[in-house]
């Protein structure tokens, strides 16, 4: 008996030893995992609110989401009213002042956020009753007050202001407006003008019209009991008065008639934003919804997409290029392929984008591409299931998108059944190169000439021009416009010197002192600058009494003091400071053959001569007044090229000479407006200033 045991034991051991795994090959995946999707519990309230509850007792926490599924709202000449409504919600209620409200939420270790037609909160489940009560109270009895309204409006205006020259923001606005028109909720955007038209009453009206229970869903997920949720929701949300939002029509947009480039000139752009777009009529319930998603994913989904592999990995044009395919039950949405690229490769990038868009329709995708993409989708779907929110989201989709009840239960099966042919059919239907609008936002003078010569399928792609409000305009000035007959570099310089006072007056100047100040993130920067005709220079930038950066140059040698650290200037720095030191460098530019005329450009709406002063420096002189209106300098900042732009405005006379009294400097994301306090000529400067 004993012996048998031993034998058995030995053979078992042997089995283990010999059945060694083969680690030279990747292990095969096991059978596809089974998906177990629960359904949430639901109930409806008399006022129309639908409630979904997912009980999940794994962790003692709860989240509550309120979502109002109204049709898109056209805000018209008061665009911005919905955002303002969102930011004024959740600031207490009629019965609880804002500060007390915030303090209590903080004490509970919870969070609450509101949108214009939504709200979200999360907390430990033991605080569920109170947090639900607070959220309902703030949602149903908001306390809109003038003071908060003004504060939020100012914030919004500041944001809009900071986006004025933001290429990405402009591109986003205009691409939307051109696709949908500005008379469509998805095409309109807020402007300073439209936000200024909004009043507190408009916010109250917006809230009254749209923050209604008719199309509202309340989703509760977490460690709660359905019965308790039902009781409390009925208690807190019954005061929410029944109502239906007004139904207003808006224009139905249509695709571009032919492939075209729509160009927006943003002269400060160092990168171009490219969006190739067409409208798509795709709803989640459409039978080709999944093949369409896969087609888009293969084309431009993430780091494995064709756009990324081509424009980034292969060509190095951009940090990333992607595509997206929208779906919308209310009407058209968009297919978009996007890239942010260097100015110099803007035209090549447009060509590559068009090629990829064409290719995904023309040729079937490879089996491997499709299989890998399916695996990505499967992984994502499966991983999302871990989060109980997913169950609620899926149930909400089924409800709001009118999907079959088993839409997500059969999701993986249906993904796996998609064929190469299905993908191509979907690509052909939803990606329409023959009606693609390629919206390019960038610097006309550098990118426009080449953009006008793009061929697609043997035909030249026409370019149309728009301003940043998406209004059609004439072609902007670009490239090297010919110098008007009989005008040379010296003429431009002479006209400038004449305009600021004339060479004779300028030669009387031995020295000048300028003091100016700028505001930076709430801090005041003080600038003091002294220059002499014989090339001495001193500049001190201080925050309050603390000098941040001081440069001193006596004509031969100099030093820099930064935060109390003194460093002598090196050779290169001396060359640079010598250029800066001259009070009116244009005097020395006359008859300098290295200075080149580079064309005529529009700077802040004014036509200007562009002179290239050196490798790094370019200046623009107003064609009409002759005054210098802008100077750009290329510099190397920590290995990256950076452009510093100074705009000169508000010229004022001091002792017969015109000086700009506003100097706006932009370096990368930083912007300073220096306002000149005082300029003194031939006084207040002594040699000791340069020691």
């Amino acid at each position, binding site marked *: 008996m004993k012996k048998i045991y031993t034998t058995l034991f030995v053979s078992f051991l042997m089995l283990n030893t010999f059945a*060694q*795994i083969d*680690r*030279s*090959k*990747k*292990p*095969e*995946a*096991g*059978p*596809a*995992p*089974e*998906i177990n999707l629960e359904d949430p519990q639901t109930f409806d309230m008399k006022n129309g609110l639908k409630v979904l509850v997912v009980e999940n007792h*794994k*962790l*003692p*926490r709860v989240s509550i989401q309120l979502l109002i599924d109204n049709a898109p709202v056209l805000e018209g000449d008061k665009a911005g009213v919905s955002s303002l409504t969102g930011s004024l919600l959740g600031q207490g209620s009629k019965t609880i002042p804002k500060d*007390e409200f*915030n303090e*209590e939420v*903080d*004490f*509970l*270790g919870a969070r609450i956020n509101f949108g214009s037609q939504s709200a979200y909160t999360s*907390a*430990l489940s*033991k605080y569920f009753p*109170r947090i639900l009560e607070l959220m309902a109270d703030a949602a149903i009895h908001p306390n809109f007050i003038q003071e908060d309204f003004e504060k939020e409006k100012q914030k919004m205006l500041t944001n809009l202001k900071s986006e004025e020259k933001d290429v990405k923001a402009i591109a986003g606005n205009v691409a939307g407006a051109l696709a949908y028109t500005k008379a469509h909720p998805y095409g309109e955007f807020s402007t300073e003008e439209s936000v200024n038209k909004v009043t507190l009453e408009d916010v109250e009206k917006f809230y009254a019209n749209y923050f209604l229970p008719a199309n509202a869903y309340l989703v509760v997920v977490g460690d709660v009991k359905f019965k308790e949720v039902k009781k409390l929701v009925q208690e807190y949300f019954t005061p929410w008065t029944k109502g239906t939002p007004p139904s207003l029509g808006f224009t139905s947009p249509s695709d571009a008639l032919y492939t075209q480039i729509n160009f927006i000139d943003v002269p400060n752009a160092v990168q171009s934003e490219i969006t190739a777009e067409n409208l798509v009529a795709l709803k989640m319930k459409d039978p080709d919804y999944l093949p369409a998603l896969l087609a888009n994913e293969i084309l431009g989904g993430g780091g*494995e997409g064709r756009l990324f592999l081509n424009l980034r990995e292969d060509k190095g044009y951009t940090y990333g290029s992607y595509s997206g395919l929208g779906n919308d039950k209310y009407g058209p949405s968009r297919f978009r392929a996007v890239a942010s690229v260097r100015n110099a490769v803007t035209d090549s990038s447009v060509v590559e984008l068009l090629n990829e868009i064409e290719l995904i329709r023309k040729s079937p995708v490879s089996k491997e591409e499709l299989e*890998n993409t399916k*695996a*990505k*989708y*499967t*992984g*994502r779907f*499966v*991983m999302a*299931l*871990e*989060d109980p929110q997913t169950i609620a989201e899926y149930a909400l989709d089924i409800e709001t998108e009118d999907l079959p009840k088993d839409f997500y239960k059969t999701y993986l099966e249906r993904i796996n059944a998609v064929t190469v042919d299905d993908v191509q059919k979907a690509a052909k239907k939803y990606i329409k190169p023959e009606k693609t609008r390629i919206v390019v936002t960038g610097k006309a003078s550098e990118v426009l000439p080449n953009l006008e010569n793009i061929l697609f399928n043997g035909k030249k792609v026409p370019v149309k021009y728009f301003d940043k409000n998406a209004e059609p305009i004439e072609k902007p000035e670009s490239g090297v416009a010919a110098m008007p007959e009989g005008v040379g570099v010296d003429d431009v310089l002479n006209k400038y010197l004449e305009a600021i006072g004339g060479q004779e007056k300028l030669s009387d100047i031995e020295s000048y002192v300028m003091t100016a100040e700028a505001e*930076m*993130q*709430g*801090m*005041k920067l003080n600038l003091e600058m002294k220059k002499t005709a014989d090339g001495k220079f001193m500049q001190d930038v201080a*925050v*309050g009494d*603390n000098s*941040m*950066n001081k440069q001193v140059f006596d004509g031969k040698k100099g030093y820099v003091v*930064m*935060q109390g*650290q003194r*460093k002598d200037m090196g050779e290169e720095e001396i060359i640079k400071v010598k250029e800066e030191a001259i009070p009116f460098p244009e005097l020395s530019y006359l008859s300098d053959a290295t200075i080149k005329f580079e064309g005529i450009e529009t700077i802040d709406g004014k036509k200007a001569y562009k002179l290239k002063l050196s490798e790094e420096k370019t200046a623009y002189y107003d064609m009409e007044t002759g005054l210098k209106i802008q100077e750009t300098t290329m510099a190397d900042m*920590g*290995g990256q090229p950076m452009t510093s732009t100074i705009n000169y405005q508000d010229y004022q006379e001091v002792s017969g000479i015109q000086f700009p009294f506003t100097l706006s400097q932009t370096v990368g994301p*930083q912007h300073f407006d220096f306002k000149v306090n005082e300029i003194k000529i031939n006084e207040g400067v002594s040699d000791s200033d340069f020691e």
Partner: protein
Amino acid sequence: MKNTILLGLSLTLSAMVATAQEVAYEEYNLDNGLHVILHQDETAPVVTTSVMYHVGGKDRTEGRTGFAHFFEHLLFEGTENIERGDWFKLVSSNGGKNNANTSQDRTYYYEVFPSNNLELGLWMESERLMHPIIDQVGIDTQNEVVKEEKRLRYDNSPYGQLLFTVAENLFEKHPYKDPNIGYMKDLDAATLEDVVAYNKKYYVPNNAVLVVAGDIDISETKKMVEDYFGPIPKGADVVRNYPKETPITTEINAKAYDTNIQIPASIIAYRTPGFTERDAYVLDMISAYLSDGKSSKLYKKMVDDQKQALQVGAYNIAQEDYGMYLVFTLPVGETPLSTLNTEIEEEIAKVRDSLISEKDYQKLQNKFESRFVNANSSVEGIAGSLATYYLLYGDTELINKEIDIYRSVTREEMQKVAKKYLNPNQRVVIDYLPGEGNEQ
């Protein structure tokens, strides 16, 4: 309003005992010393496979800093059975995701896959441990990548050098004085031999923990773990014997410069005990008390009421041997840094000299409970916690019991600990200023 809060209070007290959530796990050692922790969770058909190695920035010799982080990069280069460049493709084309990170104390690698690819995850991690390809090509490639990462994350990033400055002033002898990412000259000087020797010393099963968490069958998983990790030979014991610091008894003042910033910052930092010590938990609570949330002491006073600071934050940077406790502020307008420091010290002095209020104490308890609950909300997060508690704290069960430590901390203890570690003569005060520095 008052009534509601009181009601909330009593609710908390009664609910405290009831909310103990339990993360169930099983742990054992393989013969080669690899510690294995299995955690089953059938919520979704997803599995996380992860390995934490007890090797971090501090494990180096002088002149060879940054090795642990460099290895994190190097060990994606390929193995005897996984070709160079295939690692990420293997993951994404099988529906997974992966990543890795390195601290001064440990290195962590993980993959998340649909559960039918559990074996793939185990294979990949065992390949990495068993026979990674370490050659000059990989070293050269990753040397460049690490330099790029350093430029992006530290050199070109506003306040990117801040923690380095704190560390070099708080530590004199202990390796924590040097940046985790290391000095580039050290990486440049590293030879292939150095690198291979480092791998042999630290990347051994007896210096690591494997966690498999998610939708798994326990006995099948054990067999797979044995199959893939069993044959890996045990290494020599890892001995750590780093120099001890002498206590700071006089305030240290320092200046640092950063060209990427326009607004200066002030930092007050203290050296604190290693994270396994009870005092470290107490310090965690003190920093939350001072600066977590809009109603915290420093935020409310300096940002909201007196408008002296744009931002203020207290951080307890927990590490194995010593911690770093720091308060960081950005001034509004022309507020001098010294004023900020006075204001901060005033609040810290209050913690030393008096008890915090009952209400604030309760708020803290709510916050820590909320943190604890959310920390274990994903299987991926649980896997990381299990590995950390075992490998660095030496007690896996902390995943369920750590909250009890916070709960047991009293107001009196907070005062005692503040008195012990947060005195003006124990601090380092750093003016972190815009501009070019003379160092480095």
